[in-house]
């Protein structure tokens, strides 16, 4: 069973971008313990009033928070639309992922790894891990 991993990287070698900074996600496809880069996807759109940093301003424009209706919260449009772009991935690797974005990823069952490693090193680890748990083998560092 193959799956995809999304990575936020500026140079294709290190995971060095925060989720908010990524303009183009590197998508890797994993089969067993082998992986390869298959495509690059642009994020949906970048709001003009985006603040530099890892999260966007809470530009929730539906006003649903007024009722304290947290269950129905769709999150800021910038984040949810970006997540839409990589929604078929099993996990995402970035230097830092803000709290709001993490919550939205959780809803789509995408695992968030906020780490800062060279891409190959991180992928080897993750791929080995998923391979072990998918095949019910014991896992250790």
């Amino acid at each position, binding site marked *: 069973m193959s799956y995809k991993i999304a990575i936020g990287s500026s140079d294709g070698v290190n995971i060095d971008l925060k989720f908010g900074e990524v303009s183009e996600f590197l998508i890797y496809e994993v089969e067993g313990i082998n992986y390869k880069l298959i495509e690059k996807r642009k994020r949906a759109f970048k709001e003009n009033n985006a603040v530099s940093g890892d999260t966007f301003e809470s530009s929730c424009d539906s006003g649903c928070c007024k009722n304290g209706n947290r269950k129905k919260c769709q999150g800021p449009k910038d984040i949810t639309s970006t997540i839409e772009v990589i929604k078929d991935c099993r996990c995402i690797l970035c230097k830092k992922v803000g709290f709001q974005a993490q919550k939205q990823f959780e809803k789509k069952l995408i*695992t*968030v*790894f*906020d*780490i800062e*490693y060279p891409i190959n090193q*991180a992928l080897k*680890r*993750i791929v080995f*891990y998923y391979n072990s748990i998918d095949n019910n083998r014991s*896992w*250790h*560092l």
Partner: protein
Amino acid sequence: MAKLLDKQRYKCALGAMQSVQAIERALPILHSGPGCAQKLSEQIGSSGYFSPNIFPCTSINEKDVVFGGVKKLNSTIEKSLKVIDADMYVVLTGCIPEIVGDDSGEVVSRFNEEEKPVLYVPTAGFKGNNYKGHEQVVDSIIDQFLEKSEEKEAGLVNIWADVPYQDLFWLGNLRELENLVRELGLKPNTIFGYKRGIENIKKIPKAQFNLLVSPWVGLSNVKKMERKLGIPYLHLKTLPIGATETSKFLREVGEFAGVSKEKIESVIKENEDYYYYLIERYADLFLENRVINKQFSVIADAQYSLGITKFLVNDIGLIPAKQFVVDDTPKKYRKEIEEEFKNLNYGIKAEASFETDGYLIHEEIKKHDYHGYPLILGGYYEKELTEDLKGNFLNISWPVQDKVVFDSSYVGYRGGIKLLEDIYTVAVQRFN
């Protein structure tokens, strides 16, 4: 096929974090998933300088499992040292870091040069229950903090008994044991409870001997202390409850410590005189057959099962039905403990079962003929069963849900009186 364990009476080894909490101004730092401390802590009686809900914890998640939680552990320990004022920091590991293979010991050793001691205790849940975890905590203190001392203080006795927080009466029990030892003219030293923290731990190597009052918990600790610190030990299996056992206790401890026979006997006489004065006043209640049960069962850890059985048979004259030791005693100790159950007055022998499954215990109790109403002393799980059998129930072992205990105790002469009060209170309530 996987087995189910029904109504277990202990927690996982990480429950030993409360043994650390019992040492004043010692702080447990947990390396485990989120929520372990809150789930393992007792519902009542767990607050204080630092409560389990706010123990520093690495709260590891999937990322730490894949990439290692060592960095998080390092920063948690570092920040705890900065932010929290404690005398001793004890890092306890939960299941996940041990399965995954984090080298927590190495991380802790990086803090060896710090002003305050940082210890490491491997207490993964699958390694055993919190009785073993408690032994593990004491082992780590001996291994990583204590050094052998050439200078010994005459009359200083370290007392090891009970498991804090697992036993509701832990504080009172330890204090009463101290009182008994003090009456003999010796100097008792314990490390758990009020004003007995790191200063008392530092005194451990100077003791004349270690006194272990427990069927098996702590035996490996005193053996280790004999090897490493050169301190001899006296192992008394029975927790002294009531006059018969307490007098025996005083004689054995006094003789081992070299206290004069006259002194021992005078202490015993003074206590026994008052004890039997109290008993005499209620002799009519004891002799009324209608009020009290004939046979009893204790469902508790080894300490209470043994101690209470001896008290009820030797002092009160009841007949033991089957007794249940529910702390998952290691197999190597079971034979000796079984022998101890047969060591009762009048040639009576009690049968002990090391069953941990609540369902099987209840089935056995239901099958047995108690020749009247059964007297059951056990955990709250037994309450409904005893009501069905129309027996008398006293909640003395974990879990304890129907009483609040601060520092009262069942140990010693006073403890025997208190246990009698509690049992007969239940009996007369039903009589009315």
